[in-house]
């Protein structure tokens, strides 16, 4: 019921009361005129007053019961829907109204209960989603392949560590959320691939059970690595293409390896052809002219001898080159002592029918080895023992010796023959799991271990001892070897699917919401406060996309100021002459930083100073930082014009941002970013929503009129 209606009712009641009073007066006057009895007059008047008061009270009760109590009920309802869902009404007044209030309270209880349930469901769903995202992020970061997910504009929505390590150029191109994939992969290659998959995707539509569309190409990264790139599109439920997944594989190493092998094979073939050619020609000459002079015959024999020697040397050389090439791929893995012994034992029994006796085996021991090759090496050794000494039984020991594990292969022997070792250690007979051929010596070397022969005269047995590395974590090597659990605090911010809804970079920045913009938050440390004289010693920056500070996408670089850093400055930021020695100068760093900031709004605290420092370098670097900018100092003055201090510490304190790593460029940049994120809703409450509005508001503050 509206206030005006209530007022009308009160007026109506007052008029009714006056009318009643007038009627009562008229009635009394009539009685007086007839009886002229004073006693009757007083009692009549009292009656009238009583009547009027009674009427007024009745009206009051009526209004309270049906108007005011109902109004309070409505007010409570409004509060309940808005800021205070705990608000309840005291049931009073007319029983009907009180009953209504009770029902109202029950409804309110139910409402609060439902709201609580819904909130907890949302929380649960969020937590589930978050967990899934964390798992995805952890999974992605473990992949050796690079993965990028892009929308059709080429904006990167997700990437993993692999992609970044393959594609990040040396300060010339960056992988980052919201950045363009064309900055790191050739635009025409992507465009061509995309065209192909789009055509195939459209052709495929409607076909049942069609294979996923995918295309691949080879591209070179900024650092000259060859990358095999696969591109697969993905669509929303309606079947419209929304973006594509790019997977990257570094082929360079494989190509290098196979071309090394090709070269090796070719050289071997050519040298063998030459040597065999010489041998064959010599033999045929001798055969064709059996009556040739002895001296001539001797020359041919010499040729045959020399060339066959050269052939053997060539073969050995090739084997060695091949083996050293293989060594690069050897994999050392943790294995439990008993598992290793079991493998050796079974291999010896199956292959050589050799009896194996187990002696001291430390079953708490873990070793880090290439088990296949080791087993092969030991099998070869025992095979030689069988041939040389008719050994039918060997004894195995595996115990810890300091930081190593000692594996002994013992056999009974009447005397030691140290020369034997000389024969065996370098023979090329062990085949490893890549069909490579290596020596026993190399088996030990590849484990970073040692191998030697020893004779124990007292026990009358000889043994080979292999020293092998122990697994690093003796307590729980299995855990050490397993995939590390994702650390939630340091979860990489490698994805942002909200970028799907990002309107690209096309609309003018000015009219875009402060929340949608991509920022580079940065800070510099300098040798002092006088632009033109002082120099930058450090730049720290990170990107902020969709209201998230991306701590993985940072730029942090010391800069050689090419002048001495005053002690007073070092005292503030801790950067000394020593630290900047050998670092690149501003003329190198600023163009890289410029690349890093491409397409973003620059955000800083008191950034006029930093911009002025950049400006001083314009002629030298050839880059002009002409980005849109926002300054948290000025925005703070917009929000709190009455406050005197707008230093970063003060604002951070005011807004409840914790100070971390202050007075490092990156630390200050992070803090500035956090301060800004808290300012955005406060600015919005003042109607400042777009970049243009924020800039205009900042310009109007007094502080903006002071500049460098």
């Amino acid at each position, binding site marked *: 019921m509206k206030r005006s209606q209530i007022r009308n009712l009160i007026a109506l009641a007052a008029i009714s009361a006056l009318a009643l009073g007038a009627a009562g007066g008229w009635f009394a006057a009539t009685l007086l005129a007839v009886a002229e009895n004073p006693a009757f007059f007083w009692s009549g008047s009292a009656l009238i007053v009583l009547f009027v008061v009674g009427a007024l009270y009745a009206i009051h009760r009526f209004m309270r019961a049906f108007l005011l109590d109902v109004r309070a009920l409505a007010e409570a309802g409004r509060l309940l829907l808005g800021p205070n869902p705990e608000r309840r009404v005291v049931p009073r007044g007319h029983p009907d109204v009180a009953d209504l209030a009770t029902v109202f309270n029950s409804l309110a209880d139910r409402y609060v209960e439902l709201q609580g349930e819904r909130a907890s469901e949302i929380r649960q769903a969020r937590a589930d989603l978050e967990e899934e995202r964390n798992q995805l992020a952890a999974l992605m970061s473990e992949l050796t392949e690079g993965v990028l997910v892009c929308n059709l504009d080429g904006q990167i929505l997700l990437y993993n560590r692999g992609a970044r390590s393959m594609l990040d150029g040396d300060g010339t191109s960056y992988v980052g959320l919201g950045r363009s994939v064309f900055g790191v992969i050739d635009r025409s290659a992507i465009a061509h691939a995309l065209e192909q998959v789009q055509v195939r995707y459209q052709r495929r539509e409607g076909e049942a059970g069609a294979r996923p569309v995918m295309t691949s190409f080879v591209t070179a990264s900024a650092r000259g690595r060859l990358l095999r790139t696969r591109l697969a599109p993905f669509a929303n439920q309606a079947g419209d293409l929304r973006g594509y997944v790019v997977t990257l594989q570094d082929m360079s190493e494989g190509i290098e390896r196979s071309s090394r092998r090709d070269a090796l094979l070719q050289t071997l*073939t050519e040298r063998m052809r030459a040597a065999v050619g010489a041998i064959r020609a010599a033999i045929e000459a001798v055969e064709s002219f059996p009556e040739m002079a002895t001296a001539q015959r001797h020359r*041919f024999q010499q040729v045959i001898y020399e060339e066959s020697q050269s052939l053997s040397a060539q073969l050995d050389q090739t084997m060695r080159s091949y083996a050293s090439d293989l060594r690069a791929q050897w994999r050392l893995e943790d294995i439990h002592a008993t598992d290793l012994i079991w493998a050796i034992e079974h291999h010896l029994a199956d292959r050589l029918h050799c009896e194996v006796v187990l002696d001291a085996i430390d079953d708490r021991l873990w070793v880090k080895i290439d088990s296949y090759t080791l087993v092969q090496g030991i099998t070869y050794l025992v095979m030689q023992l069988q041939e040389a000494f008719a050994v039918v039984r060997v004894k195995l020991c595996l115990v810890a010796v300091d930081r190593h594990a000692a594996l002994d292969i013992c056999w009974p022997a009447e005397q030691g023959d140290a020369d034997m070792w000389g024969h065996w250690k370098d023979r090329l007979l062990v085949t490893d799991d890549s069909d490579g051929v290596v020596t026993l010596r190399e088996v030990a070397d590849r484990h970073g271990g040692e191998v030697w022969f020893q004779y124990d005269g007292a026990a009358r047995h000889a043994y080979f001892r292999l020293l092998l590395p122990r697994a690093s974590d003796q307590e729980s090597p299995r855990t050490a070897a397993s995939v590390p659990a994702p650390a939630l605090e340091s979860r990489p911010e490698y994805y942002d699917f909200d970028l799907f809804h990002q309107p690209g970079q096309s609309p003018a920045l000015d009219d875009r919401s402060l929340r949608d913009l991509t920022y580079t938050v940065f800070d510099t440390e300098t040798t002092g406060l006088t632009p033109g004289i002082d120099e930058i010693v450090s730049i720290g920056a990170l990107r902020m996309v969709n209201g998230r500070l991306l701590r993985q996408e940072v730029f942090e670089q010391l800069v050689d100021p090419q002048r001495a850093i005053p002690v007073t400055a070092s005292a503030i930021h801790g950067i000394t002459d020593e630290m900047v020695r050998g670092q690149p100068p501003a003329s190198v760093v600023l163009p890289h930083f410029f690349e890093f900031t491409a397409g973003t709004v620059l955000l800083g605290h008191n950034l006029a100073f930093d911009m002025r420092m950049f400006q001083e370098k314009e002629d030298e670097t050839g880059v002009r930082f002409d980005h849109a900018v926002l300054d948290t100092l000025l925005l703070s003055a917009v929000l709190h014009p009455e406050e005197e201090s707008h230093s970063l510490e003060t604002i951070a304190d005011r807004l409840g941002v914790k100070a971390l790593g202050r007075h490092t460029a990156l630390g200050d940049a992070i803090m500035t970013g956090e301060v800004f994120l808290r300012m955005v809703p406060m600015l919005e409450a003042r109607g400042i929503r777009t970049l243009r509005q924020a800039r205009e508001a900042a310009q109007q503050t007094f502080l903006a009129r002071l500049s460098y």
Partner: protein
Amino acid sequence: MPSKVLIVDDEANIVISLEFLMEQAGYEVAVARTGEEALEQVESFNPDVVLLDVMLPGINGFDILQHIRQRPRSQSTAVIMLTAKGREVEVTKGLALGANAYITKPFSTRELLAEVRRHLGVSEDHETLTN
């Protein structure tokens, strides 16, 4: 007047046999061990047949072949590539540059001699290696 054979190879051990066999076959033989020597010998010795290796110190066999083919006086000179480079692309290259034959090492000395004779247009009657 015997036909002249120039052997171009830097591997002494193959040169010994080639020189011996060619001499026994009744040819006048000259030997060059580097690319530069080979070019000089082509000028001064003016061979009828060149047994040409590819891998040589200095100028390689393919370049020497091209030089011979561009030289008016050597139009009738037969060039037999005799080399350890046996990949198909190399054979194709040698023949395309104008080699009369491309023989990869190791080779049969009998077939080599037959090839030399074939290019000199000498009849089977002169064969000295028949057993």
